[in-house]
């Protein structure tokens, strides 16, 4: 089993993701350079947070042209696991690997804080270790995390059980107050139709160790490991 963490120019959570995989869940991991064209030997790919190409123009807009994205498209089509965190989510929507787009936060400001997520589906390789409705404490750090999709798309991803996480109040209710950025339906993370590509704005990489305030993020990485182990056995 091998994880790959992609480095785009301007990625800045690449080392954080690498560290969690190597030193917290103890699994093999290597960096993947944005110019690379092959993902041979990798079982799961992480698109880390940061500001790829400075997030100039639009978040994720220039990163989608990196050679590695062609390889990732191919990798995803063949069923490989891809998780995009924060800027990684933005790159996945820009590349068309996930539906919708991420707009400027309604408050117009970058927001960095811990908040609560409600797990909406456990039927994904990223949440198989969680229970439906489980609340997670995971921080966000973004200026453009306001999830948008047109009405039709929104209906489709809701109907297909593609919404994985929603911003929630501490008691689990999905409220306007709990929504940090204006996302439609409080959406914090979604999967593609095939369910092997996850994009989420909150940072599991910043919440996988108790000394950082929460270990809830680790459950997502561990779910990926479960899924990969299961796939190997099958």
């Amino acid at each position, binding site marked *: 089993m091998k994880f790959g963490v992609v480095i785009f*120019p*301007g990625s*800045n*959570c690449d*080392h*954080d993701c690498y*560290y*969690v995989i190597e*030193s917290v869940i103890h699994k093999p991991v290597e960096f993947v350079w944005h110019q690379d064209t092959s993902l041979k030997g990798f079982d799961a790919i992480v698109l880390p*947070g*940061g*500001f790829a*190409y*400075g*997030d*100039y123009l639009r978040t994720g807009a220039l990163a989608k042209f990196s050679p590695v994205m062609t390889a990732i498209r191919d990798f995803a089509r063949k069923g490989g696991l891809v998780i995009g965190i924060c800027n990684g989510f933005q790159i996945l929507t820009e590349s068309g690997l996930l539906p919708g787009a991420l707009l400027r936060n309604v408050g117009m*400001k*970058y*927001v*960095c*804080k*811990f908040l609560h997520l409600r797990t909406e589906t456990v039927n994904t390789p990223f949440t198989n270790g969680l229970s439906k409705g489980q609340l997670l*404490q995971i*921080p966000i*750090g973004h*200026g453009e995390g306001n999830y948008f999709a047109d009405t039709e798309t929104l209906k489709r991803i809701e109907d297909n059980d593609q919404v994985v996480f929603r911003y929630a109040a501490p008691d689990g209710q999905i409220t306007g107050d709990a929504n940090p950025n204006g996302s439609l339906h409080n959406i914090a993370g979604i999967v593609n139709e095939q369910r092997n590509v996850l994009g989420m704005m909150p*940072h599991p*990489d*910043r919440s996988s*160790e108790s*000394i*950082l*305030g*929460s270990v809830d993020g680790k459950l997502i990485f561990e779910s990926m490991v479960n899924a990969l182990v299961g796939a190997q056995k099958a």
Partner: protein
Amino acid sequence: MISEAILNQHNLTESEYQKIVQILKREPTLTELGIFSVMWSEHCSYKSSRVHLKRLPTRGAAVLQGPGENAGIIDIGDNLAVAFKIESHNHPSYIEPFQGAATGVGGILRDIFTMGARPIAAMNSLRFGPLHKQQNKRILEGVVGGIAFYGNCFGVPTVGGEVYFSKGYSQNPLVNAFALGIFEKDKIFYGRAHGIGNPVIYVGAKTGRDGIHGATMASAGFGEDAGAKRPNVQIGDPFMEKLLLEACLEAMQKGLVVGIQDMGAAGLTCSSCEMGARASTGIELNLDTVPQRESGMTSYEIMLSESQERMLLVADRSKEKQVFDVFHKWGLDVVTVGTVTNDGLLRVRQRGEIVAEIPNTALTDEAPLYERPLSAPKSLRSSRLDLYSFLDGCEESLIETFLNADANPDGQDYNELLKLAVSSPNLASRQWVWEQYDHMVQSNTMVGPGSDASVVRLKGTEKALAMTLDGPAYRVARNPREGAKMAVAEACRNIVCSGGRPLAATNCLNFGNPEHPEVMWQFSEVVDGMTEACNKFETPITGGNVSFYNETFGEDIYPTPVLGVVGVIEDLSFVTTSAFRDPGDTIVLVETPSRLLGKVNLDDERSLQDFISEAIRKRLVKSAHDIGEGGLAVALAECCYSNLQRRAVGAEVRVPVHMETCKDLFGEYSSRVVLTTTSADELKVIARRMGLEVSVLGQVGGSRLVLQYRTDRTVDISIDELEAAWRYALPKLLSSKSS
């Protein structure tokens, strides 16, 4: 011909000009004059401050590099070293708050990674005029936005800092940016141009006409023509800087770099002549090869441009191509613009002609040095707020309310007073500010903004670093020497309360016009106070920055030293925060026998800090909080507010009998802390041995803060209510109508 008008434009005096002619043994060209003017500016040459800075203590067991390089360096064990420094960007932030603050962050980050260290934390200390003025709101929003824009994109967590409002900063905000980086002790790089014949290589952004004369601008006050100085504005490009960071560190790790220095103030001029001077070599530059963004730039403009995100490095001759490969990999411009020579001269050519030829040391070591006259002011600032300095800069009606309660303590509504205090501008929650900063990137932040000091763990070790910035402006204004001591004491106390051992300090000295004898007196007093305190706490000064000419229309700002102290936490389990933890924990007040106001007894303070350290290391302490502005009541409230680990928690406290109501609830006596523990008796034994006074105040628990004074319940208020007043005060102030 150099006319008087030209000299004035360059902020050079007639006698400085004579010195230039003497050095060159001829008249300077205009380019040369420009070069002298920036290198001899206050900002670069420290001509008014050097005689005083010499008195600062700069050596200590942990110090690997003191002042004189881009940043100071300390040894933290495990073969690791830490580089850190603070730097001002006050003038640019007044002209353009967003870009001014952003490029301030960019500059200090370059100072850190130019030494080979990877920046792992940033902080900032900010001063603004009162928020009932619309202009001050805009400046605050711009500055915070700019810091967030740059730091977040670059990927350094902004883990702490301070914000303070007072009238004196209305036309002259202070923006002091701090950064800290980590590296292996044997992989330090210096800005030295060694090796005759080695190539001098330019990397990073192209040169434009940005910020020409930035250094001289930072060396003059703003008068009526502030608007005219506006074209100087530099735009920050944090993405470019992130690429520079990665590329520079990669080139260093591959052993390709002989010497390296960022192009900050005075750009290409400063980086080249300083690198040459430090290595006793010469530098020859060919300006035709310098990457340029605009056409038709003169040699004067290229040498003085302060375009951001550029570095100058010297590589071994045989490795030039490898250097190019690394920078190309990161998509950056890289060009050889000159060579290291043996004649000690900065020689600059353009289109085949020599446009400047100056001995490097004339620009650095031989810069003018002034012993400016100093004199104590005739009258000191009013003592009216000595007890309640947090009220400084507040609206008069609020000040009256507290002074009246002080004079007539009976029958006051202390719940209301406490709510007023926690929601006053200088005590209100800074969450609105720090939520805009990514304070978690790099996944090391154990204690982010909001506690006494910020703590980042060091991956691969059992250690963490604690850091804090402190600058008690009002105290220094009242008494510069004592205020400076208090700044050091408070910063060290914050480190100790977080479980750390203070190792070293950096300082940013923001002052008014050095040509005013009272300002120089303040400066000298601050240096002496700081020296005494740093000696006492064994925290040598490893670097810093001086910012003079902070004045508008002739009015000097408060003398404002900002202290940055860094400490090591030897074991992650020592990390302590200010928040109360479990119901039932005993709340203890520890004080020194001298109840001082506006000054600090350094011996007593040292005992207090040694006590806290020992108690934490014996695992007797569950939380620790320094009592600062707003006194005991405000400190207790701060311990109760909700946080990531738990909801708001109350406390029931009986105020010791020696205390008077208003004075002791809100009065700011020095050298006090609130601890919680389950072993109060053991704490008492240690404290008494150290000559400290300990009072058990009460217990953590419930959902209200209750402060019982003799038999009356002086304060009895729901924490949720108090917390809401505190947490939303700043956004409320910002959205309220103002003039």
